[in-house]
């Protein structure tokens, strides 16, 4: 029983903390984000395992985590509201070369982040070449370039 309880509590705690920290917070944008994720996993590991190093305990924890994940994915599939609550929704940050500054401030993204994504994904050089920049649910920024700008590259 304890394996299932531990797995469930840790899963729910992480779900809540990551939702509150925002999609962008730990999207592995920088090397430090990756290091932070590794530290978090290390910190949580002890709470999950406790003093029980048995194979059964580990198997039950894995089973709990995977089952919860499947259950929530089913819930998300059936309910748009649950999907939004659990996974967030995309947010347009820039339209036709113009930044939507208030939204960008709220999600802690600046022009440099958008330009970085534009360079990385499409080799674009200026904001005017971007038609839409979207903050996706996984915290990454996707870029839709103007057709002309895309043609140039």
């Amino acid at each position, binding site marked *: 029983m304890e394996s299932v309880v531990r797995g469930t*509590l840790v899963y729910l705690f992480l779900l809540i903390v990551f939702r*509150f*920290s*925002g999609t962008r917070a730990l999207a592995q944008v920088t090397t430090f984000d990756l290091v932070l994720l590794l530290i978090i996993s290390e910190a949580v590991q002890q709470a999950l395992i*406790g*003093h029980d190093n048995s194979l059964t305990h580990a198997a039950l924890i894995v089973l709990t985590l995977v089952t919860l994940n499947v259950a929530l994915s089913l819930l998300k599939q059936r309910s748009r509201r649950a999907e*939004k609550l659990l996974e*967030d*929704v*995309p*947010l*347009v940050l820039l339209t*036709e*070369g113009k930044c939507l500054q208030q*939204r960008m401030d*709220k999600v802690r993204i600046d022009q440099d982040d958008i330009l970085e994504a534009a360079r990385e994904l499409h080799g674009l050089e200026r904001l005017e070449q971007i*038609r*839409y920049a*979207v903050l996706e649910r996984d915290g990454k920024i996707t870029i*839709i370039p*103007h*057709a*002309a700008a895309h043609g140039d590259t």
Partner: protein
Amino acid sequence: MPSRKAAPQILEDVPFHERQWIVQRAGWLVALLLLMLSMAGLFGDGPLSRATVGEAPLHVAYQRFLRRDAPMRLDVTAQAAQDGKLRLAISRAYLTTFEINSIVPEPERTDSGVDELIFVFPASASGETVTVTFDGTARHLGRHQGLFRNDGLPEHPVVRISQFTYP
């Protein structure tokens, strides 16, 4: 030149985002508050957690808040009886809430009483005050109470403590 293509199919929900930003910021405040309370000792070590009850000839220094599987310490200071022995009785129910790793000084023997265990410690002189340190690991979740009694003294002074163990 701006494109005339239709807007991309992005399932945006700005009102949802606006509500979410408010909730997120409230969540950050809650996290900050929890961290401050944690520094103060609400979840273990800290001034809010440290407590002392009783006075001579029996007092107990303990932590109000414990965490399961984490180390805990109890300092029981008590006066030895005229025969140079300290007889410290602790409720049996309380002793099941943690695992004793060490007792310093070590008891000479342990006697079994009604719903309690009596630890007998040597003292160098009659009436001497002895501090006994119990180092252990918290095991039981939730609130639990402990009863300590100086069994060697005629008035049998009693001290009660209450602790809470987090998961």
